[in-house]
Structure formats: C-alpha cells, structure tokens
C-alpha cells in the first residue's frame, strides 16, 4: 500500500519529519518498505518550445530537436522520441538537472551530435505513466517556466508499506490517517461529502425506478448500495488526480475509472461502474453462478464460473460481473455513457478469496473484499464518488439509490478486563489510559460494572476492524497504540534446568566423531527426481508430493544415498575429488504408518509417513572397509554399549544389499538389532551418478540405534601384573569372517571372575592369501594378550588356553593353525 503525505493530511493535521512519520507507521504495524520523495528533483526542468526537428545524420533512432527556452536561441537536443511536433511545448531537463532516477543531465555527444539537455516523458519526471514519448505540455505556458510551476507540481512523500492481512483499514488513506492521527494525538476528521444533486435534494433521495437491486444470495452479499450519476462526460482526469493515482501505483485511464480508483484508495471501498443504459431496466441481482456459466470480464478474458462463485446479473439474468473480483465487459463505461450506475457492495470475504484464488484473478478490489471492507462505508463512498466526479466533470448525483441488505457480520462488543490487559502486556495502565488509547481509533469504550475481577470496559469494535472479535484482539490494539517498544522488558524464570535430551546429546557426539574423523557435513534437500532412487539401485517406492513445484523435486527420499551421491558428483564435476561427506537427516517411507486413533494425544507419538532419522557417510573406498572403520568410531562416540573388550555387540552380516557392491556389503546389527548397512557403493550406481571413484558407504538408522538404552560404564580393575602375548594364525575358508573368528577366540579365553584373568585382548594383525595356502583360503593372524589380576600367569596356564582356542576355531570355523 502506498499513501501520500498530502493525502493523509486531508484527514488529519499530521506533523513531524518524514523519518519520524516513518518510525510511527512502522511502530503501528505498517512496516515501511520504502519512502519516496516526489516533486523534489524537477528543479532544472523548464518549459521549452520545439523549433525544428531533423533526422540525425548517423542514427536511425535518434532525431535532432532545436528548442527555445524563451531567449530566442536554438538549443540542440538529441532525442529518441518522435511524438512531438514543431511548435509543441515540451519539458526540457537543462544541463545540471538531477532527474528523479538520479541521472545527472550533462552536455554530451550522441554519434557526433551535441545534446544540451534532455526532453522528458511523464515517466522520466515521475509525474505520469506515459513513456511512449515526450510529455506535450499545454500550449499557453510561458517558455522557460519551471515545470513545477507550470504543472502545479507539489512536493510530496509516498510511504509504501506492506498492509497486514488483519488490517483491511490500512488499505485506505483514511484508515492510515486515523491510526497515525491517534498515535500523534491530533484530531482525525471525516468531511461529510456533499455532491451537487440532480432533481430532488439530498434529504429527499429515494428510489425513482431508474434501478433496482435484488439479493438472491444473502450469505454472499451483505450489502448492495447503488447510486446513479447522471450527465457524465468521459474525459481525462485533472493532473492532480492523475498524479495521486500514479504515486499510489495506479494508472490513470479516464475520469470515471480514475474517480472509482481514487475513492477505493482513499476510503477503502471498492466500487464498480456500469453504463446504466446497458442494463435492461436498471435491474441488478446478486446470485451464485451456475456451474460452467461464462462471462467476459473487463480484461477481455472469457471466464468459466462454478457454483461457488458469486455474480451480479442483469434483469435478463445474464452475469455482468464476478462478485468482488472483476466487472463484465458488456456494461462497461464508454464514450457514449451519460448515466453511470455505481455499485458499492460488501461481499463475503471467504467467497471472494475462493473465487479470486480459483480464477487466479487478483485485483485491488478482491484484495480489499477478501480482507473485509467496512460495511458502513458504502453510502459515504457513493457521495464521495459523486462529489469528485462532479468536481472534475459536469456530472451530478441522481436521487435514485438502492441500499439492500444481505447477511452482515455484527461488529463485536467485547468485555475487556483491565487486569487482563495489564496481565498480558506486563504494563500498569489505568482504565482511563486504556480508554485514551482505544477511543481515538474508533474502539468505543464504556466502563461497566465491576464484576469482582477488577475494572472492566465494554468495547464496541468499529465496523472497519472485522478482525477484532475477542478480548486479546482489543489488548493488541492497546499494545499497538501504547507502543510495543515501551512495554518494560522482563525475564521469566524457567523452573527447569535447560538441557539437551540424551538423544540430542548423542546426535552431537555422532557429529563430533564424524567431523573428528575428517568428514564434512552435507545437507542435500530431501526431494528427489523420479528415477533417482532407481539409479541408486533402490526400490522406487518414495512418497510422492501432490503438488511439487517441479518434477525434479517430486519424490521424498527413502535413503540418504541419492542425495549424497549427487553431492559427490557435484563436487567431482568442480574438480573437488576425494570428498568425504556425512549427513544426518530424515528419510520417508510409504506404507509404514496408519493413524489408529484420531484423538489428539494419540497423534503425538505415532510415526507419520514412516519418517526416520538416519546418519550416513560416504568416502573413498578401501574395499568398503573405510566405512567399517568409521562405524567403530561412531559407535564408540556415543559411548554406551561397552564395545570392548567382549563380547562384541556389533555384528556385520555380509549380504547383497540394494545399491551396494554384492561382495562388499553387510547389514549392521547391534545387540541383535538391525541398525543399518555398510560397504561399498555398487559400481553400476556410481556409473549412473557419473562418479568415477569407488565409494564406501555407511548408513545407520538413528531411531533404532539411539533407542538402545544407554549404560553408564562401570570401572574395572587394571592389572598390575605382567601380561603374556601370543600370536596365532589360522587358515580358514574365505567365507569365514575375521570378526567371527575373533569372537570365537574371545569366547574361548577365560575372563575375569573365578579364573582371575582379565583383559583378554584379541587383535587381527595380518591377513594373508597365497597359492600355497590354496584357493578359497585365507590366513588370519591374531595377537592375544593375557593378564591376571592377582598373579603373573604361568606358561602352563597360557598353554592350556592356547590349545583351547585352537580347538574351538577348528570346531566352529574348520580353521587350522598355520605352521
């Protein structure tokens, strides 16, 4: 919304500097987007007369114009426009002028020809919208006269702000002036507009049969007022009106349309004009459209309506307008119009919102109707319309009028407790202070009998504030006009210790561990393109969006793999190879959810759309082993499951897994529960994503992992006796995993307790394959370290254990000790 300072001052004696006013508007909830000074930069522009026009010798699109500034000298100007003729008076920006755009006019040469200034269009001076050519001035102006004097241009300020959705009153100059006047403590006044009337006096106005209105859909139309303005002559609006419209962001069209827009901007009442002669017997009816009903609207488009759209129809029941959105072409004002039927209505905001959204037709009128127009405004706006039009053309207000009611919402009367006001705001306002803040903005207050809960006010909400319906709404008005910045700042005390939950702490530990391991966190968007999952070797079962903006973002990820592969590929394409990334984020799955109980508290704990949180890692492959090393780092970082020394809680079950190398992949089990996958990305997948290097992959489901209860680690004694080391190498089948052999060794060695043994440490230190060993076999060499709490172990004791281990490996894995 753009408002002019001069326009505001027609309603209230607004004072203060521009920056002061700007701060006040923002503080009232009209956050300024821009402040624009107009009329201040036109100082160097004067009236000049065209003496001669001739073509530029070396440029097709430029002509040379000689102008006279009143001293009889011919001054040559290069000009791109050709709409002027010899003898025309035109505005000339002389050398040294700074145009409103900031451009400085200086002597220059254009293709070798001197130009000593610039002829201006209305747009260049920001006083008109016409940029088709040079502004042609009235012929009687004195040459050399400053343009500001010649056109009576006044300096003004345009304040532009974003009107809040709950403040339809700020979509009018009057509404802004009322709010600002209240803040400044200056009187706001509304003139009784008094247009000249034709026929009977205003007091005797009555329907004379020129027009009639019928509301067939009272839930759609709360009020429908018509006035007839007779003796209309279509023409141009005067410059002052055109300028205001332009400054407010509208284009001047003709006097009738301009007055219509002017009234809407000024008072906030959208209105529509019909050529009365084009309405059979002046009859209008308001009804819902029929399904598929067609109407040609003013913008020249034929639109198809539904039964949820409101229309205004003529006596023959043909639609002549879409309610609250746009008028029809059939009754449009034209050169031949003499009698104008003016419509001033109140439309149901939801109906207008629905129609303008469905038709994607957003007009200044629909914007105001859908936010709520003041239902009391119509008669006033009708008089203002007639007054303005008669002031600029020979029109007169005809006594004919209709004022038909439908269903109108009642403005609320609200009990407001002073305790509640101060209790919610943290202020100590007296009843009189609250009244002093509310009354000037039309919230009429009246003290009521104390009901035992302190002082109370009965507040009549003004009709222009349909958003205000309950006590807190009124309290907001108090806060607004008291000044939110003036409310004393206090700090409430939380009775809780602020802390993170175990899961939130675990998440941080995981991140620290990954960053510590040299990985960088990526954050791909969770949207995938159709085909992304398949290219990653995964099932194409991602949830689909019903209304994606683009197809490339229409599938929700079921895995972190595609997003991270894209990130790796992106970096590789920018010559950033060997990137090591991790991500912690959510994935979504079809079919894993059902809403069992519609009760709100039951909704709390259910999983929607199979949403789970995962952590994934992608890095340069070492036969998939790179990711396994990180798995250890990760699990150790959350420090909960006593990973060492034994028994091992983690198990890797080799298998063919979607998207992964069939021979280098495993499911990760922790304490018997599946928590994720680890391995190397399938070469086909790498190829599909255009990645040349081999990648290791790890993805863990945090919803499972972090739900495993945490254990506070309990200290164990550290032995002070010497330890014995022993190396054992076993030849086993390729299928036997190193980890299973290690687990067996751990199980076959004595641990603390009756044996007194502690710290049985088992490390794989060498893996060896050779022809001598034989195909399909490998040698796994382990170093075992034994120690007892209470003594130095004897060779005999260690030998017993050694034999026991060898025996167990043979039994469980068919392994033999390598010679």
């Amino acid at each position: 919304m753009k408002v002019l300072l001069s326009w505001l001052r027609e309603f209230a004696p607004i004072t203060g500097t521009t920056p002061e006013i700007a701060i006040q508007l923002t503080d009232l909830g009209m956050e300024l987007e821009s402040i624009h000074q107009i009329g201040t930069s036109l100082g160097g522009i004067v009236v000049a007369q065209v003496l001669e026009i001739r073509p530029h010798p070396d440029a097709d699109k430029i002509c040379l114009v000689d102008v006279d500034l009143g001293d009889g000298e011919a001054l040559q100007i290069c000009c791109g426009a050709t709409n002027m003729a010899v003898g025309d008076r035109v505005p000339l920006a002389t050398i040294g002028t700074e145009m409103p755009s900031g451009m400085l006019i200086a002597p220059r040469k254009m293709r070798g020809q001197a130009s000593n200034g610039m002829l201006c269009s209305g747009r260049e001076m920001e006083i008109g919208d016409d940029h088709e050519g040079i502004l042609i001035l009235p012929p009687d102006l004195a040459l050399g006269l400053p343009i500001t004097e010649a056109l009576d241009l006044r300096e003004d300020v345009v304040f532009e702000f974003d009107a809040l959705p709950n403040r339809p009153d700020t979509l009018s100059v009057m509404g802004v002036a009322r709010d600002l006047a209240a803040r400044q403590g200056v009187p706001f006044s509304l003139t009784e507009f008094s247009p000249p009337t034709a026929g009977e006096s205003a007091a005797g106005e009555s329907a004379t049969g020129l027009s009639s209105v019928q509301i067939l859909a009272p839930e759609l139309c709360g009020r429908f007022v018509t006035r007839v303005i007779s003796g209309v002559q279509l023409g141009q609006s005067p410059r002052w009106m055109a300028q205001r419209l332009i400054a407010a962001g509208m284009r001047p069209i003709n006097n009738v349309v301009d007055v219509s827009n002017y009234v809407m901007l000024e008072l906030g009442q959208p209105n529509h004009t019909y050529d009365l002669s084009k309405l059979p017997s002046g009859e209008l009816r308001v009804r819902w459209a029929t399904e598929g009903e067609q109407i040609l609207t003013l913008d020249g488009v034929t639109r198809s309506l539904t039964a949820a759209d409101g229309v205004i129809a003529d006596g023959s029941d043909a639609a002549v307008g879409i309610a609250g959105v746009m008028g029809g072409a059939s009754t449009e004002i034209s050169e031949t119009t003499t009698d104008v039927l003016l419509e001033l209505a109140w439309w149901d905001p939801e109906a207008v919102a629905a129609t303008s959204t469905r038709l994607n037709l957003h007009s200044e009128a629909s914007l105001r109707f859908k936010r709520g127009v003041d239902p009391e405004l119509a008669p006033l706006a009708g008089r203002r319309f007639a007054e303005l039009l008669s002031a600029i053309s020979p029109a007169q207000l005809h006594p004919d009028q209709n004022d038909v009611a439908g269903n109108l919402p009642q403005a609320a009367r609200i009990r407001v407790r002073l305790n509640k006001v101060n209790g919610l705001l943290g202020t100590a306002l007296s009843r009189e202070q609250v009244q002093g803040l509310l009354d000037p903005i039309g919230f009429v207050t009246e003290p009521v009998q104390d009901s035992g809960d302190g002082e109370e006010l009965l507040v009549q909400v003004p009709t222009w504030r349909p958003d205000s319906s309950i006590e807190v709404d009124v309290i907001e008005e108090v806060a607004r006009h008291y000044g939110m910045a003036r409310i004393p700042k206090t700090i409430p005390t939380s009775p809780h210790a602020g802390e993170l939950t175990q899961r939130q702490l675990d998440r941080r530990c995981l991140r620290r561990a990954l960053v510590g391991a040299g990985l960088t966190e990526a954050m791909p968007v969770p949207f995938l393109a159709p085909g992304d999952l398949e290219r990653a070797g995964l099932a194409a079962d991602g949830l689909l969006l019903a209304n994606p903006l683009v197809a490339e973002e229409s599938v929700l990820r079921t895995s972190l793999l595609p997003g991270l592969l894209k990130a790796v590929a992106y970096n590789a394409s920018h010559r950033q190879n060997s990137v090591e990334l991790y991500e912690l984020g959510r994935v979504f799955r079809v079919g894993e959810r059902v809403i069992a109980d519609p009760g709100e508290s039951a909704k709390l704990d259910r999983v929607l759309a199979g949403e789970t949180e995962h952590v994934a890692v992608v890095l340069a492959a070492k036969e998939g082993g790179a990711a396994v090393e990180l798995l250890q780092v990760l699990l150790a970082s959350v420090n909960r499951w006593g990973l060492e020394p034994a028994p091992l809680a983690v198990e890797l079950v080799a298998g063919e897994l979607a998207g992964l190398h069939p021979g280098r992949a495993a499911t990760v089990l922790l304490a018997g529960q599946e928590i994720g996958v680890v391995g190397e990305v399938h070469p086909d997948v790498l190829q599909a994503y255009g990645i040349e290097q081999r990648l290791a992959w790890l993805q863990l489901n945090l919803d499972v992992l972090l739900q495993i209860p945490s254990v506070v680690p309990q200290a164990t004694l550290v032995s002070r006796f010497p330890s014995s080391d022993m190396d054992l190498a076993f030849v086993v089948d390729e299928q036997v995993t190193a980890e299973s052999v290690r687990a067996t060794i751990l199980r076959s060695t004595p641990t603390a307790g009756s044996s007194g043994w502690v710290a049985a440490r088992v490390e794989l230190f060498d893996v060896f394959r050779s022809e001598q060993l034989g195909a399909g076999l490998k040698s796994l060499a382990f170093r075992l370290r034994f120690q007892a709490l209470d003594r130095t172990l004897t060779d005999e004791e260690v030998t017993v254990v050694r034999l026991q281990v060898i025996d167990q490996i043979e039994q469980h894995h068919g392994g033999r000790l390598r010679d």
Partner: protein
Amino acid sequence: MTVDPQQIAVEGAAAFVAAESLAEIHELELQYLGQQSLLSGMKASFRDLEPQERKALGSQMNAARQQLELAAQDSRSKLESAARAAQLATERVDLTETLAKATVGHSHVITQTWERLEDVFCSMGFTVADGPEVETDWFNFEALNLPPAHPARSLWDTLYLDSSQLEGLGEEQLLLRTHTSPVQIRSMLRAVRDGSGPPIYVVCPGRVYRRDTADATHLPVFHQIEGLVIDRGITMGDLAGTIESFVKAYFGDEMTSRLRPSYFPFTEPSAEFDISAADGSWLEVGGCGMVHPNVLRAGGLDPQEWSGFAFGFGIDRLAKIRYGVEDLREFVTNDVRFLSQF
C-alpha cells in the same frame, strides 16, 4: 712396588680424554679399572705392607679409581652428546611439508548455528523439542488457529503428500510442515499428558518446507527455531525481555531488540522482532507474540489459567547474517569449497 696410583690415574685420565669411540672407552675401562688392571693388581701387594702403609695406599688407590671413573664418565657423555648432536643434525625435516595434508572435517554452518542457538536457549532454561517433518493438517494449521478456510493459510505455500499412497489416512491430509509451530502444539499436549507442565520452556529447531522456488533469499527447504513459554502470568514484557536477552547472548551485548506489531494467526498480540544493526537501522529477525487462546485450547490448556508467548525465526537467515553468506542456495549446494569455510 714402584707403581704410583696417582700416576696411573693421570695417565689413564689422559687416555680417556683422548678416546674417540665408546668401544675405545670400554677398552680403557678394562685396562685401567678391570680385574686385570694395574690398580686391581696392587691389591695383591697389600699383605706385604704395614697397616699404616696399607691404609695410605688404599686411599690413594680409591682416589685414583674415582678419578678414572669420573674421566671415563666424562669422556663417554661427551662422545654420546656429540653422537646425539650428529644424529639430530641428520634428522632435520621440514615439518610444514605435511601441513596441507591434514584433513579437517566440518559441521555444516546450519548445524553450527542450530547448535549454538540450542546452547543459548538451554542456558536460559529452555529444553529442546522435536517433531515430525511430515505433519497432519491439524497440527500444521488447524490447531494453530488456522481452520480450513482461513485466508491466512495462503501465507504459507504448502507442499502436500499424495495421500493415495498412504493407507488408513481417512480424511486427514498429510503435508510437509511449513513451520516449526506444530511442535508448540505437540509440546503442550505432551506436557499435559505427561503432567510435566506447564510451566513449559521449550525451543523447537527443525527443518521446514515451502512450495517456493530457490533463489538468493528463499529456499524450499530451510530451518527454523521456535520458542514457547507457557506459565501463569506470562506477559508480553516477558516476551520482549526474553528476546532481548537472547539477542544479547547470541549477537553480543551491544545489540538490542525491538518489537513492532505484526500479524500471525497463532498469536495475539503479534509482533515481529528486529535487532539493531551497526548503522542504526533495524534488521528483521523473526515473528513472535502472545499465544492465541485458541492455540492454548488446542494444546489442552485453559487460556483463563495459562498464558504464554511464542517466537520463531529462520536458522538459515541467521547463519546468512552471521557468516555473511550472500546466497541461501550455498547452504544446499554442498560444495566442499563452501562447506569447509566454517
């Protein structure tokens, strides 16, 4: 007996000084101090001596032995430190050769911002709550005083899920949450159910979605943090004070904040909060307000008994301001040249 221990000592000490290797020292030690040495041999002549003489010779021998041992030790440590110095000289390396090879990981700048915000609010007595990214219409809109036909729903361009894929949905519509505000409702309902509150002091950071084209200042997927305080007698002054103390903790003590009126369906009064910029202008950070009675009711609380405030703002926007990021799209491009700057 003509051998003089003192003479042996002088002679031997000179030999030790002249020694050029540890092996030579070892040889000399055998020669002068070993069992076959002259000094050791002198012991044999003791029995021929008078006690008086024996005592004198004994002390001479001890003195000579001490002198020789000292000379050997001296010579050895000289040779050893020369050898260590020579070794060190050959071991000289340029430590900076490996400097560039070190890989340092990086948390995403959004995560860093997120965690810092959590820390600031935890220090102010808030706990951190979480909620799903796929939400029901009820939690995302209706419970927040946005019934189905509410015109303000158009403020959020919402991405809906194609519900034909989900069984058991009934009438319910699933969407990608457009803000973290549904977690307010979840926090209230949970507190009421578990009996853990009010008082409720909670912040809810999380990922949110809009049907929006990515550009320098918009992302379809971004992050917000939402704060909610519910207790008896909570005022708008408490809101202003909490925002102020957050702004000082996060941006620095010299910063200040202000509230100015705004509109959100879920708060009344509603405000935006700005922070003071260095040039005296104000920078818009987020929205806030006193929790609307209808929202309290949806959270299972009686608005006559409880009041509260809520605030929320974009984590990405904060990161953009703090780290001088010009284009929000940098956050999701995952270019390591960007990610590794933080």
